[in-house]
């Protein structure tokens, strides 16, 4: 789960106050829902790519999301292309007609999905679990619950490590896991032990959390505190300008 460990990056964007990152996330998500054109959605995608590169994170991190969303996108384009009879007929095979309006709507839907997934992923990459906890506490969520999202994020790499160990174990005992079909078969073998391990692990983790005093008091102390620095103000100014341009464009369209 290298993508979830990428928060250890030390770029200026990583170091920004998590509230700036939340503003970027919410602002862009709103823009994604409000935008209707392929160009606008592509621009948001481009801005995600530029800011990701600026934070010294490789775009390869989005590759898996891109592949999965593409799979859904193709189905969406075909489905809407056939079921939404708007605009010109692009292709006609037997009694099945593919309409340009439906295809455009399908592409927009796919871009929306891709934008949202990449935005969420970007937020996770930029924000450490500790920052997320501080943010939740700052937002007034009780401290007992504020630590949980950060811990949940932490659990994912642990699960992936378990999966890796289990797959390695099976490989060392002769299970072939080279081709995709072999991997799919292997996945069936590991699902049950992985679920059992996850349940066992979550029980153990909750034990050690309690042994470390979790839930003894309704509040807790933090090693660091959130505070707006000059770079955060600059960041805020930057995203305000960006959203001003986006809003103007959406309104004029």
């Amino acid at each position, binding site marked *: 789960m290298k993508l979830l460990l990428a928060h250890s990056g030390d770029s200026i964007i990583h170091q920004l106050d998590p509230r700036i990152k939340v503003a970027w996330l919410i602002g862009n998500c709103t823009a994604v829902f409000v935008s209707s054109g392929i160009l606008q959605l592509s621009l948001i995608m481009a801005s995600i790519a530029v800011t990701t590169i600026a934070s010294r994170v490789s775009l390869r991190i989005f590759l898996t999301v891109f592949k999965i969303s593409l799979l859904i996108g193709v189905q969406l384009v075909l489905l809407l292309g056939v079921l939404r009879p708007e605009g010109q007929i692009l292709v006609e095979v037997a009694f099945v007609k593919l309409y340009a309006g439906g295809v455009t709507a399908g592409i927009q839907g796919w871009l929306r999905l891709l934008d949202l997934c990449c935005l969420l992923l970007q937020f996770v990459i930029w924000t450490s679990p500790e920052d997320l906890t501080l943010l939740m506490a700052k937002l007034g969520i009780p401290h007992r619950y504020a630590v949980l999202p950060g811990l949940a994020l932490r659990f994912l790499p642990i699960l992936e*490590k378990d999966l890796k*160990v289990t797959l390695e174990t099976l490989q*060392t005992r002769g299970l*072939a896991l*080279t081709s995709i079909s072999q991997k799919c078969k292997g996945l069936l073998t590991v699902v049950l032990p992985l679920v059992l391990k996850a349940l066992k692990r979550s029980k153990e*983790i909750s*034990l050690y959390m309690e042994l470390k*005093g979790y*839930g003894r008091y309704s509040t*807790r102390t933090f090693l660091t505190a959130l505070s707006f620095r000059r770079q955060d103000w600059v960041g805020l100014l930057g995203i305000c300008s960006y959203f001003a341009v986006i809003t103007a464009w959406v309104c004029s369209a």
Partner: protein
Amino acid sequence: MEQLLTARIDKLSYQGSPEAVLQNVCLDFYPGEFIHLRGPNGSGKSALCRCLAGIIPLFESASLEGEVLFCGRNLSGLRLPQLAGEIGFIGHDPQNQLFCATLKEDLAFGPCSLLVEPIEVEDRVKRALRFFGLSGYENRTSETLSGGEIRRAALASAWTLDPKLLILDRAFDQIDARTHRDICCKLAHMCNEMGKTVLLVDARPKAFASLVQRTIVMKEGTVVYDGKIDRSPAHTLSHKTGPRSGTMLESASTVSLEVDQTSTYPLTASKRREPHDYSIDPIISVKGLCFTYPESGFALKDITFDVFRGEFVAIVGENGAGKTTLIKHLNGLLRPSEGEVIVNGLAVKDHTPEQMSGHVGYLFQDPLGQVCFNTVREEVGFGLKTRRIHPQEIAQRVDQILKRLDLMDVANEHPYRLPHGKLQRVALASCMVSGAEILVVDEPTSAMDYPQNWGTLEILSQISSEGRTILMITHDQGIASHFCHRTFVMNKGRIVTDLAGGRDLEAASGA
């Protein structure tokens, strides 16, 4: 002196099982004591530790008849978080004790939950990291730590809570000998100077034998000895006055056997291996192996060695020296960035781990992570099933290996239900069953008690005599010296010494 903790347990049994896990346990613990709790696997040590830490019955449901009092308060009337900062507990699965993004956050989690001021937390974290030799690891994640380092990190995370009583249930498994001894010395110092009480369950008493003030021996769920063990040769337990808490002792002879056996291996000349024949071609040949982990930057540097057919080779070294990383190259789990690894005539880089599995049997460090099936029989037989061997032959071979490793009584049990020592044997059986010519085993006996440990090593020794080659990672230099033909000592990603017959091992490893 006032008792810190008093345990009067008449009977403890788990739900659904009429059998008592603990019975008639009567113990008092005082401030400043350094106590060793010992006994064979399944004698109830872990259950007792969990009762004393309040985990039973506050977290795990079990039928507990009796009471455990901490500073006069009955634990059953409290909530588990209320014991944080009073009683610290470290179990044998360190990965689950580290659940934050970085080591620093893990160490700070406890004190922050107890509302300790951030400056004080920072100070405690720094001291704990220094105490456990982890300075500079603040921003590391647990995934990038070696097995031994994770254990030290788990210890450090309990340490920052500053508990009055620290219960360590096999917390030192897989920690290298030098660090083990250093930490024990520091714990003893903590008991003497700071009045802390430490209860230690550990299978390697040599490291702290002279430091322990009190030894509690358990057998079949009850305390059979409670007092100080004099290690002079003429001493027997029958000279003792008996347990201070009034527990009935078994016959002195039974107890003394238990205690003496766990103290050390019989260092007889007959157990030393004869020099090996090195005129034959090597079965494993590693030349100029280099490898770097991108996450941590840890590297193996220019490793070259040969291992010959039928050799039993030990790999020793401090935690994080690169032992596990090295052996993962022998079956293709890791690929070298430079150099070549030839195993049984095959270039490993050209083969997948499953292709190598016919040549190399591999036992992982954590046997729990290896479990994939619902019964011991299925678990052990899986390696044969992947080779499409006839089910009847699989059953036959599985039975053979289970008998050899004394696991027939648990053949139909779920591996998760087994004690850790037995689970380790199941994992060993799964890697032995295929009959691979080479066995690569990562700390195969770290969780076993003396008889199991000795028995397993005897079996490995026999296998080696039959012409199969064994590479074994161990932190027990006694094992390396007395069972293996050769020992590689690793340090900072290199093999620094290659010793025959375990000679000068302690000096070479700096232990």
